[in-house]
Structure formats: C-alpha cells, structure tokens
C-alpha cells in the first residue's frame, strides 16, 4: 500500500520537524534573543519543505490569504476580528511575520509532534502574506480566498517593480491545479490589482464610490500609468489615494463596478472615518475608529472577504466599529499631558496619506516628527522620500523634528519641499539622528494638551515604541506566542 506508507512517512517527517522547530523557539527565548517569532518556522521549513502544505491543508475552514503593498497587516487583523465575531476561530500570523516561515511558525503553535494540527472544527487560517511569498503560500495552502489590498511602489531593493509582482502572481494562478478553487477579493480602484481578476467570474471587488473625496490626478508616486488591458494611458475621473480611483482609458476599458462599496465618507481627523457601507445586502452607516482613506479600503476589503465566506453583515460591522488599529501601524499615546500620534509610513503613498491627515484637520502650527531609517525592514533605498508630497506641510508646521539614521536625507527633502524655510521664527526645525533624544525634545516642545504627530518607518517605530515602553508610556506588545516583539530592534 504505497499511498498509506507515504502518508504516514509524511506525518512522521512533519512531526519531527515540528519538534525541532519547537526546540529552536524554546532555545531562542531561553538565551534571551527574543523576537524569535519566525525562527521555529524557518527550522521546520528547512527540515520539511512539505510542512506548510501538510499543516495548512488540515485547517477545517481553509485559508484566507491577505497581501498587497499597504494595509495587509491591518486588513488581516480586521478580517480576524470579523471572523471571530462571526463564530470562527482564526489561526492568524498576527505579529506581521508574513514570509513562509512566519506563517509556519503560527501553524506550529497548533501542531502536534505527530504532524497533525490540533485546532477546533471552526478554525480558519488568516495568513498575512508578503507579496514575494504569495506563489508558494498559495500553492501549498490551497487558500480559498486571496485578498489583495493594493500594489504600490514599496521597497524596490527588496521586491522589484509593481508590474513584475503582478506577473509573478498571474503565473502562480495559472499554475494552480484545476481542483484548487480560489476566489480573488480585489481592490476595484487599483487598475493593476483589479485586472488580476480578469476573466474570473467568482472574483469579488471592493471600492470607494464617494465623488466628494479625492483629487483629480494621481500622486507623483503613481505606479499604474498604463491600462492593464490595452497598454494605453490611463485617465482618472477621481483619485482617492495614490493611483487608486475611478480610472478609464480611451479604448473603453474602465474600473469595474465593485460589489462592496464605501460611500459618503466623513473624516474625523485622527479619530477615524465614518462611511456608508453598501453591499448586496443593503446599506448601513459605519464608524471606523482608525483614520485615513486607506483604512476605509482595509475595512471594505475585510467586508468583501467575509461576504465571500458567507458571514452575516451584523457581526462584521460591529467588528469594524470596535477596531482600534494594529500595533505600530497607528497608535495614540499620552505623554506628560501631550498626545502622541504615531503613524507608520514605509512608502510614498503611505507617507502622503499620513501627511494629508496631519494637515487635513485645518489650521496650521502642527507639531511634527518624521523619522527615516534604512535597515532592511525599512528598505535600504531611501529614494522614495522624493516621491512623497512633503510640500503639503509647507506653512503648516511650527515644530519640525527630523530624525532617524537617514535624518540628513530627510532634512534635504524637507528643505526642497519648502517646509524648513516656512517654519515661523517662533518655531523650530531640528535634525538629529538620535531618535530617542529627538522624541524627548519634540514632546517637551509640544504644549501640554497639544498633539505631536510622529510619522516613522518600521524600525524607527520599534525604537520609539521600546523607548515609550521603558518609561511606562506604552505597554509592551506580546504576540500570540508570548514573545515580546518590542524588545528587539532589528539592526
């Protein structure tokens, strides 16, 4: 019985790998390296490359993958909360460790040394997946849903160009076996992403319809200049964010009508956005407690995914109303009577949205800290700051603090954007690579009762957070594995 023998040897092999991976995680924590979120996954993947498929295919509810340049962490957390409210038990790589090893590490916590997955009958995988890892995770996990938030220019030194990523994904879709029943949940407003569903009847799309929001032209950082159907130039009736919006070409191709829509957006500064959610089940008003148009996209991406899974709208909507953001992406703190709002910005589009939220409340005299690091997790190439529209800060800022390892590059950018020169004589502009000291100075310079906005790259966020934790202004973040992920700042 060849089949039986291979099944049992597969279990045995995965089981042994699970045991070794567990040990690696235990050793890592015991020697105090912390941050060992993904190490067990790495060990298992090396020992048994079939483990990801073997374990993830045991999930009774199947797997939902979430990818895209911006918003995949927030969207996957939203989907997790929505599914929990709908009675599912999500198995989720919540720490944002989104390569194969991070997903495996999450599965390992529920795996036995016999290679079987010990989860309840209503368990479902929610895998935030790095763009580059999509083909492998898709193939191995046989995911039933792939949610794509958007495709923007991110860290070109890591990923390659937007068109190249989309092509890799299309190749991966084409290589799936006929038995793999995959549905795509796509952003209708992103030309490249929406085109991934071309010719697939089961695709669900989401988008923003509000004619009142947005601009006439794409950002400078636009990545989707050409129509994905015919290669001619794209035009826009309306741009919501980056190159997202109501696009069309003069050969008659246009943004498809989305199935899940957000309309009548009403922004409430850093406190969030209200919008009308329209689905085939009707319309309802929803308050999303995290700011920015991009988070509205994340919310409706989650609604579309849950609709594809057959969830009721009621618990899904309540999960949105109770959502307060994800560690490090957007957080509010109180320090010595000042409000500190920390926003992650890792690429031009994210930076533009953060800058627009700073100035969006009107008035001027803002207190702003911007920090730029160039570790691997931030992207080593800091060119992207020249694609972000820092110009909109000119004349709006009283206290500007520029920090991070590449503070000097940022200072030059803010000079040419006219921001440094526009600061009133009563204000200050400071450049300091020492982030902790810069933050202290910026907080001290913010009046009591005022708001300091810190716009930071990934590792600068970790630095600020660990400094706040040390001094009791913030709680440490413990991931599902009990690992303190704020204790270690990657070099």
């Amino acid at each position, binding site marked *: 019985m060849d089949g039986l023998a291979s099944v049992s040897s597969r279990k045995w092999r995965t089981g042994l790998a699970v045991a070794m991976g567990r040990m690696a995680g235990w050793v890592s924590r015991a020697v105090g390296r912390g941050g060992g979120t993904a190490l067990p996954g790495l060990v298992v993947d090396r020992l048994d490359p079939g483990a990801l498929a073997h374990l993830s295919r045991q999930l009774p509810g199947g797997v939902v993958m979430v990818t895209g340049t911006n918003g995949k962490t927030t969207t996957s957390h939203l989907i997790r909360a929505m599914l929990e409210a709908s009675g599912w038990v999500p198995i989720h790589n919540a720490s944002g460790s989104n390569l194969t090893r991070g997903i495996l590490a999450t599965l390992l916590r529920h795996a036995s040394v016999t290679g079987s997955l010990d989860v309840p009958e209503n368990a479902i995988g929610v895998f935030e997946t790095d763009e580059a890892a999509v083909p492998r995770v898709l193939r191995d996990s046989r995911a039933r849903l792939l949610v794509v938030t958007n495709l923007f220019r991110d860290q070109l030194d890591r990923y390659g*160009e937007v068109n190249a990523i989309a092509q890799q994904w299309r190749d991966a879709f084409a290589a799936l076996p006929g038995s793999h029943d995959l549905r795509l949940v796509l952003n209708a407003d992103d030309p490249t992403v929406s085109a991934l569903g071309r010719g697939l009847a089961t695709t669900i799309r989401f988008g923003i319809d509000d004619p009142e929001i947005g601009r006439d032209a794409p950002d400078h*950082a636009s990545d989707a200049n050409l129509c994905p159907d015919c290669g001619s130039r794209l035009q826009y009736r309306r741009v919501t964010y980056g190159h997202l919006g109501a696009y069309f070409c003069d050969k008659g191709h246009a943004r498809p009508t989305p199935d899940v829509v957000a309309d009548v957006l009403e922004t409430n500064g850093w406190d969030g956005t209200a919008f009308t959610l329209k689905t085939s089940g009707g319309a309802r008003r929803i308050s999303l407690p995290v700011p920015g148009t991009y988070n509205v996209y994340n919310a409706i991406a989650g609604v579309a995914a849950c609709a594809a899974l057959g969830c009721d709208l009621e618990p899904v909507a309540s999960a949105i109303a109770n959502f307060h953001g994800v560690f490090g992406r957007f957080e509010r703190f109180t320090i010595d009577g000042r409000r500190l709002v920390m926003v992650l910005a890792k690429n031009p589009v994210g930076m533009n949205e953060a800058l627009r939220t700073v100035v969006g409340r009107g008035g001027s005299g803002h207190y702003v800290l911007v920090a730029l690091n160039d570790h691997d997790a931030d992207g*080593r*190439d800091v060119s992207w700051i*020249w694609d972000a529209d820092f110009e909109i800060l000119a004349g709006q800022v009283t206290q500007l603090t520029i920090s991070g390892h590449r503070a000097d590059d940022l200072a030059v950018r803010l000079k040419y954007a006219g921001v*440094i020169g526009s600061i009133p004589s009563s204000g200050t*502009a400071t450049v300091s690579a020492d982030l902790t000291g810069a933050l202290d100075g910026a907080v001290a310079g913010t009046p009591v009762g005022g708001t300091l906005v810190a716009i930071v790259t990934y590792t600068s966020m970790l630095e600020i957070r660990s400094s706040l934790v040390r001094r009791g202004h913030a709680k440490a973040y413990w991931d599902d594995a009990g690992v303190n992920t704020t204790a270690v700042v990657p070099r």
Partner: protein
Amino acid sequence: MTLRSTASARAKVRIGHLYGDLLNLYADRGNILVLTRRCEWRHIAVEVVSIGMGDRIGSGEFDLLFMGGGQDGDQQFLGDDLFRVKADGLRGAVNDGVPVLAVCGSYQLLGHYYDPGTGPRLAGLGIFDMHTVHPGRSVRRCIGDVVVDWIGAPFRSPRSVVGFENHGGRTFIGSGARAFGRVVSGNGNNGEDGTEGVVQANAIGTYLHGSLLPKNPHLADYLIGKAVTRRTGSARLEPLDDHLEWQAHQTILDRHASHLAPVAGRVKLPRGSAR
C-alpha cells in the same frame, strides 16, 4: 510641471524632462526639483517642460535634458516613440553640447544595446558608447550605496559623488568612452572594472539615483552652469547655503569611504540643527 521665477527678466532656462509622466521610478522627481529650486534661489528664470509621447526635441529648444528610470513595461511602451520621435533630437542635442542627465533605465536605453540574457537583444539609441548585459536572474542585482570619484569634476570642486544603485544589468563602456566616475565603494557599471556611468560631450549617464542631485549639489550646479551658459553666454552661479546637502553627502562618505577627506572641507557643517 512648470515653475517660473519672477525676480529676473533674463531669458528662461528650459529643462526638458523626457517622459516625465512615464519614467518616474526611483524618485527622478527629486533631480528635477533640485535643478529648479537651485535656479529659483538664484533668481534664474527656469521652466520645466515634460517631453511626452509624440513630442519632438527641437534643435536649440532645451538647455538641459533629464531622463529617469521607469517600470519594465513602461520602457517597452515608449521604445517605438524613443526611436521614431526622439532619437534625432536627442542625438542632436548631445552633439550640440546640451547637458543631459540620464539615470538608470534610460542610461541603459542610450547605449548600443541591452542584452536581457533571455531573448533577443534590445537595440538602444547608441548615443553612449556602451552596452548592457543582464547576467540572468540567478546573479545578484547591484544594490546599495555608491561612492564614486567624479573624473570630470570641475577645478576646485569636490570630486566625490554619492548615490544608490539598483540594477540587474551590467554595463560595459567602449574603449574610447569616458566613464563618469571611478568606483570608490559599490558596484558601478558592472562591479568589475571600477567604472561608473559614462560621459559623452556634456551628457552624463549613470546608475546613481537616491535621488542623485539632492546630495550632490556640486553636480547639480555643474549641470545648471552648463545650461545657463547656453542660454546667456556666461554663468557665474551665486553660492548657496548647502550645509544640509553636504551633511547628507558626508553621511554616505562616513559609512562607505571614511578614508576620503571630508568633501565639504570648504563648507562648514553645523550639526544638530537645520537652521
């Protein structure tokens, strides 16, 4: 994008940005912004004209030309336009001594050919005496900070130029061609022969972005000086306060070429404050 200075009645310097709406990868906008601001701060009237699909480059029309990167598809898309509509004007401008800066993807396009490793060679315009070969996806890309010694740096100008490179293709310049710089740190054209970029008359092709000009104000002013000279017959550029620019330049030197003397030896570098 059109920027005008009001403080001077002198003739306008016209900067042509080739395919400015298509080739805008790697923050090419930073280069254009630095060229225009540095003119404006000196009350030199300047105008940036986007040279799009179908637009020809007339003789004497531009005082400076800039060409940036782009996504792969974008470059294939413009290939036909480049050969049929732009080639003659661009070649004429280079022969006429117009300063040109071509970065990364467009640097490759101006060589004899690009050999993608898989599939047929793609012809280039042949304005630069060089060609590019892609060694295959399994060979690592050239990615990281670069420091070069600028061979043609003007007398008494700092000679170091810093930037960031990210290219798969390896470029080899002809035996008679002049390199833009000698690599001090990083890969440059091919990681083997120590050359970076190429110079033909007043045209510079280079892999350095980052953006290139913000951290290299001496190179920006070199190009502006050539452009202003074309327009007005002479150029004595007023010095600007470049301490932030040189500080950013120095940070890269400190990381990768700390053996070089501080480039900004003549410029005071106040630290810790932007003003």
